[in-house]
Each structure stands twice: as C-alpha cells, then as structure tokens.
C-alpha cells in the first residue's frame, strides 16, 4: 500500500514538474494587431525605456550582490563562529546561513538568465519584428519574476535569521535573570 502511495506521489510530482516547466512557454501570448502596430510606432521610445531599465537593473544587481555578501561575510558567519567557539547552540543559525547562501547563488544564476534574455530582447529590432519582440519581452518578464521571487525568499531568510538571533538574545536575558 505504501509503495502505491509513494509511486502515486512520485508520478504526481513529475506531472507537476512537467507543467511547471512548460507553464512559461504556454503563457506566452501572441500580440494583437493593435499591439503590433503600437510597438512598431513607438519602437524608439520602447527601446529607450528598455535601455534605462536594463541600466538600472545592472546597478541594482551590483548593489544587491554586495549587500547580500556583506550580510554573510561580515555578520552571519562571524556570529555563527563566535557561538560555536563559546559552545553555544548555533545549529539553527548555520542551517539558515546555508539556506541563505544557496538562495544568493540562485539569485546570481537567475539574474544571469534574466540578463541574457534582456540582452537578446534589446538586439531585436522592434520596428521590423514587433511580434518576435513582444514574445521575447514576455520571456524577459517571466525571468524577471523568477529573480523577484528569489529576492523575496532571500528577504524571508534574512528575517528568519534575525528572529533566531532575537530568540537567542531573549533566552540569554532570561538565563541571566
């Protein structure tokens, strides 16, 4: 019975994974005739807007990467090491730090994918290939959404680490009284 349940769960996971992977491709819609015309007419403005967003994202990426690195190298890892040296419980914090580092690594990978798609989008001549441009734009949006989701996960982990430290502080205060 357990084997049947296990196989069922495995099959369901595979089907879910298949649809999850294919979802982005299915979600890409063709532009309407009006949109094609609008893209063609406003191509210069759209390209200028995209250039601005691309430049801004590059700066955000640099700043975020730096801010994420500072949190681990200057704060999380030193505190974890200090707790271990003092024989205090640091297992939870070490696990959270590892999760954080994996998420930051995923952020780098997903931003890399996003940046490549964005660069491809900027290469497309929107006045000559408006439909292709629109489809690529949607791919860029999905990639941007992935990056956004990972930054949200990272923010959650940052909060989680803080909550764990606050709990340790509370325990320490209660022990001192």
């Amino acid at each position, binding site marked *: 019975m357990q084997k049947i349940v296990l196989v069922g769960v495995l099959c369901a996971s595979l089907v879910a994974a298949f649809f999850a992977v294919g979802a982005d491709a299915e979600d890409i819609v063709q532009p309407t005739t009006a949109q094609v015309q609008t893209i063609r007419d*406003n191509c210069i*403005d759209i390209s200028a807007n995209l250039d601005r967003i691309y430049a801004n994202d590059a700066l955000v990426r640099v700043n975020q990467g730096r801010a*994420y690195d500072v949190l681990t190298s*200057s704060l999380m890892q030193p505190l974890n090491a*200090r707790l271990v040296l003092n024989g205090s419980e640091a297992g939870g914090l070490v696990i959270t730090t590892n999760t954080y580092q994996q998420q930051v690594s995923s952020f780098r*990978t997903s931003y890399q994918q996003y*940046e490549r798609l964005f660069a491809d989008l900027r290469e497309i001549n929107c006045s000559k290939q408006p439909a292709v441009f629109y489809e690529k734009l949607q791919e860029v949006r999905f990639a941007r959404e992935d990056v956004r989701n990972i930054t949200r996960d990272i923010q959650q982990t940052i909060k989680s680490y803080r909550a764990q*430290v*606050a709990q340790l*502080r509370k325990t320490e205060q209660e022990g001192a009284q």
Partner: protein
Amino acid sequence: MNEDDVVNSRFGEHRFIVMIASVVVIAILLVSLALSMYISSGAIQVDLSRPAAEEARERAAQNTTITTTQDFPAEGEINADVYKEFLKLYDGAANQATSPSLFAPEPLSNSALRIDDTQ
C-alpha cells in the same frame, strides 16, 4: 644537402615569423578563454566599466546611500549585550539588502512601455 637539412634551413629562415604567428595564436586562444570565463561566470553582469553600462556607472557614482557595514568580531564572549550589538549591525545591513520593490514587474508592463492593447 639532404631533405631534412632543406626543411631545417627553411624553418631557420622563417623561424622568427613562425614564432610571432605562434605567439599571436596563443594570445588569441587565451583571450578567448578568458572572455568566455568572464561571460559564463556572470562577472560581465556586475562589471559596470563596460561601455554598455555607462548609464548604470553614472548612477552608481551618484548613489551614496550604501554604507560599509562594520564586521562583527568572530571571537569574544556571548551575552545579551553582544546580541544587541549584533542586531544593531544586522538591521543596518538588512535594510540595505531588502527592498520590497526589487525587480518589480511594473517597469516592463504593457502600460509602462505603452504597448497596451487599447491604444
């Protein structure tokens, strides 16, 4: 003079040119390898010195909001005051790392790019 001597003498005549050509080929290979590593590692995306990142470079020069976070000492005792000090540093760094509007979808929306269906 046998065939080997002829080959050697011809090589001897052109050995300087062969050396220069070899050096150029090796240099091209190494530069290609370095460029591919530069691109595949993602370093290109954080390199604001590229000509394409001129606008980002200018903004970075104007952006003075990022402050350096002091390193938390990895050695020393642990008590409530230490946690308090840590949390103070942590909150400052966390504020710089967290922003609700990071990579928001709005800038790339149809309305922002003015490609709405209704237009």
